[in-house]
């Protein structure tokens, strides 16, 4: 599985590079491929962490593409996985991006709700997903 771990890690890295280069469509393909590879590997090391990175990437990609609902679905998966993992890596970041999306959708109540969560997490020792 360590070989498969390495392959997935490389996919995630490439996906993130696509995001930086404004190629969100290609990024989605890579992140989804990574998700399938994780599920197909029974002894994958830390599958939840890797999945979280993939969903965070998909969320970012759909923001760039301009599909807010698809972005929200992916980011809710991130929150879900964070609960399962039990850490708070990237939580502040995810709350902030979700709130930004709701702002763009003009759902200001929902946006305010998530900004409050974001602000409550700002001062904690934070770190977001890196790939």
């Amino acid at each position: 599985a360590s070989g498969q771990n390495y392959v997935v890690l490389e996919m995630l890295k490439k996906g993130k590079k696509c995001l930086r280069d404004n190629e969100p469509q290609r990024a989605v393909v890579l992140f989804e491929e990574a998700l399938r590879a994780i599920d197909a590997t029974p002894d994958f090391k830390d599958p939840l962490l890797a999945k979280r990175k993939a969903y965070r990437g998909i969320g970012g990609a759909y923001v760039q593409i301009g599909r807010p609902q698809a972005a929200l679905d992916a980011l809710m998966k991130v929150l879900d996985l964070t609960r399962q993992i039990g850490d708070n890596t990237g939580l502040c970041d995810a709350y902030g991006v979700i709130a930004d999306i709701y702002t763009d959708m003009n759902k200001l109540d929902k946006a305010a709700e998530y900004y409050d969560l974001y602000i409550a997490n700002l001062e904690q020792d934070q770190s977001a997903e890196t790939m």
Partner: protein
Amino acid sequence: LQAVPTIKRLRGKAENIRLMELEKARAKLGEEITPKQLKVLEDLSRGIMNKMLHAPMQALRSEGDVQTHVQTIDVLGRVFGLSEEDEKTPQVRK
């Protein structure tokens, strides 16, 4: 709720600064950077940004009397250039 768009713009502004400075740091280190070091750079950049944003963000979301709140939104909006018209430059968001 009035403050919501202001919060988004302030976040975008700070994130642009962070990404720009992070890119500079990565460029300086070049190929010699390990994944662990990259993570440390990311965390450092986020740590400083988040802690510096905390006070203005809290003020923007604080309830309390309406007049003070409106004044806070006005002044922070003016100071950081966060009115709608200021939002001309496209923002790179992940």
